[in-house]
């Protein structure tokens, strides 16, 4: 009996260690993603960006974290205190929970479950609660408007995003992320990005909208509603929202790399597959997020809704039908 408990204990400890091995590097990536964002946008706008703390400003994210840690957290009057503090946790928990099923290479995965893709979709759709609750609990007009905008946007783009994933799983015949990557074996030509190119574009644009990033950042449109749903948050509570946004950016880029760009598989057959390929692909996609922010003006809200419902959803449906029909023809090998 005692041995059984001991086994459970060691197994739990082992899982906790694995979680730490995923979450700690993720924290570090988030910190340096904010640094790169400021640097990249700075260069694009002929500025220098942060360059005071450490060499080339490399310690800037750490200085920022320190500053936020020592700031006072203010609760607005007549706010719902409990929900006010639960909201940031509800935002960041799904952003990290989704990483449980992400495979980093053929063996390196925390939970290798059958319905991995569905699990990730469910987790990303739960993240909207943090935003809604933050807006409501703040007892502030701007925060409430921001959260309403964000909720409508996330729910709309989730549908288009879900349909693009249907295309992927039609090609891969599996919901397991590891199997989806394994289906793209054999060089760049086998990646799903080619037969599903329109879906890839739609997925990526929807991903930008899902994470509330520019040019779809009406949820926190500075010029209209100050900072949107997190306008009343300060100190670490604000930092947690910030962390969740960047962790979500990395997550959706990781998913795009796994599902469309062959994950850890090498683009050419004479080089070995490696986790480094995965990181390179994710970094490449993340750069687009920063590039978009520096380039595009903010979308108007009704146009965001129109793009999601009237353009993306019909387009994905047509392409799914096309893939389904092609699979009944002699050309079906193109789609596997």
């Amino acid at each position: 009996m005692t041995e059984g408990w001991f086994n459970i204990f060691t197994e739990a400890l082992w899982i906790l260690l694995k979680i730490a091995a995923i979450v700690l590097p993720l924290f570090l990536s988030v910190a340096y993603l904010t640094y790169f964002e400021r640097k990249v946008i700075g260069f694009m706008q002929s500025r220098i960006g942060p360059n005071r703390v450490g060499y080339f400003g490399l310690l800037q994210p750490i200085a920022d974290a320190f500053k936020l840690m020592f700031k006072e957290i203010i609760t607005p009057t007549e706010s719902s205190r409990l929900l006010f503090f639960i909201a940031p946790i509800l935002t960041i928990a799904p952003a990290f929970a989704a990483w449980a099923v992400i495979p980093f290479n053929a063996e390196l995965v925390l939970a290798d479950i059958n319905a991995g893709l569905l699990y990730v979709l469910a987790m990303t759709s739960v993240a909207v609660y943090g935003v809604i609750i933050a807006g409501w609990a703040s007892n502030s007009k701007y925060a409430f408007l921001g959260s309403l905008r964000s909720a409508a946007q996330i729910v709309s783009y989730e549908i288009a995003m879900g349909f693009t994933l249907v295309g992927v799983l039609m090609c891969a015949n599996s919901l397991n992320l590891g199997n989806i990557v394994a289906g793209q074996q054999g060089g760049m030509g086998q990646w799903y990005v080619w037969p599903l190119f329109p879906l890839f574009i739609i997925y990526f644009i929807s991903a930008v909208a899902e994470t509330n990033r520019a040019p779809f950042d009406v949820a926190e449109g500075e010029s209209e509603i100050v900072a949107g749903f997190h306008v009343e948050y300060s100190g670490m509570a604000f930092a947690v929202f910030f962390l969740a946004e960047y962790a979500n950016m990395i997550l959706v880029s990781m998913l795009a790399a796994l599902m469309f760009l062959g994950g850890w598989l090498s683009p050419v057959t004479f080089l070995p597959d490696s986790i480094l390929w995965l990181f390179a692909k994710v970094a490449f996609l993340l750069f687009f997020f920063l590039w978009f922010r520096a380039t595009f003006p903010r979308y108007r809200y009704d146009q965001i809704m129109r793009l999601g419902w009237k353009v993306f959803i019909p387009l994905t449906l047509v392409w799914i039908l096309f893939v389904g029909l092609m699979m009944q023809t002699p050309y079906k090998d193109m789609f596997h």
Partner: protein
Amino acid sequence: MDIIFYLFASILILSSLKVITSRNPVYSALFLVLSFFSAGAIWLLLEAEFLAIALVLVYVGAVMVLFLFVVMMLDIDLKKLKEGFWDYMPVAGLVALIMFVEMIMVLNQDFFKTMQATPNHSVSNTEALGQVLYTDYVLPFEVAAIILLVAIIAAILLTLRGTKTHKGIDPADQIKVRRDDRVRMVKMKSETSIKRSR
């Protein structure tokens, strides 16, 4: 395993109770979300991972978000709602009692009693569901889909009735606009010096 089941089951029952007893409707909606999660967890224990994740994805991720959306914007005065509670109590109590007895009579039938789910280990839950949905039950499945489609179209049509009140612009019209429609170039002679006349 039993401990985990009882843990989730008690969370489910407690949060369901809170749904109907919370004073604030937003809290009620959030407790409903919690009960969906617990129900999903119980399905996971039955190895029905597709159903569990679909419950979270559809109900928590979409339906309840829209629910919260509406509930947050309502200005509900509980005092007004509670007015006349005791006047209606005898009738409401009688109806509730009849419904309770009826439900017990239905739930005591034999086909409700043999409900031990046996997971099929040869295929995954997703695959097993897909196989029966698209073979044995394909007709009911398609009929359900069409009924849902009709409901969607009806709901959208209801919002489109009446005259157009919003100021949205059709993007097709916007991109058809040419420069000449909006701007007129005027050639003018530059002005000569002003004659000062006094």
